[in-house]
């Protein structure tokens, strides 16, 4: 079974530029998550989708970050404009269903973003 796919793996941009990350979850997984992991810290949830609807985006900086999952499968996370503090690894994860307590989340390899 293929895992969670993400691209690009690495991205270097100047501050105030825009950047987009793509994620394709495990086939059949209804729930998709985007996390931000700053060096030396644990992953922090940015947004959670159930199919193509947003379940939780309370920690997404909506003035510069946006995400969509139009057809309930793959997803795009965008930052516009980027700031220095956005330098981090952006992890995508997916799980089979949302409604069960203790549902396993499977992570992709992440996109390492460096903002100069």
């Amino acid at each position, binding site marked *: 079974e293929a895992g969670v796919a993400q691209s690009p793996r690495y991205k270097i941009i100047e501050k105030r530029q825009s950047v987009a990350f793509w994620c394709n979850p495990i086939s059949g997984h209804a729930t998709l*998550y985007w996390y931000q992991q700053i060096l*030396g810290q*644990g992953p922090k949830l940015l947004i959670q989708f159930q199919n193509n609807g947003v379940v939780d985006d309370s920690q997404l900086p909506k003035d510069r970050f946006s995400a969509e999952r139009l057809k309930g499968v793959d997803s795009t996370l965008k930052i516009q404009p980027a700031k220095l503090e956005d330098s981090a690894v952006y992890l995508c994860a997916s799980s089979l269903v*949302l409604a069960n*307590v*203790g549902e396993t*989340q499977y*992570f992709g390899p992440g996109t390492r973003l460096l903002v100069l």
Partner: protein
Amino acid sequence: QQPVQSPQAVILREGEDAVINCSSSKALYSVHWYRQKHGEAPVFLMILLKGGEQKGHEKISASFNEKKQQSSLYLTASQLSYSGTYFCGTDGLAGGTSYGKLTFGQGTILTVHP
């Protein structure tokens, strides 16, 4: 609120044991443990559900004390492959609708030497 992990770092020789703790200030329904190697994605180890279940995976096991809102990960007879950063992720219901919303601790760096 972010769970607190202790210790922050552990250095072991192969074959030694270690315990990593994860404490939360709020009621928990599940605790998820992951291991992340440098530059790689977090890899799922196990889930513990409300009820104090102790689960095992080869020589790695864990417990969940619901009353104390704590979980501990036990690594027995450590191997070189156990090196990495261990994260606990906690899932606590807030109004009954936050299933799947994991809040991760800051991580515990485990280094196993030959």
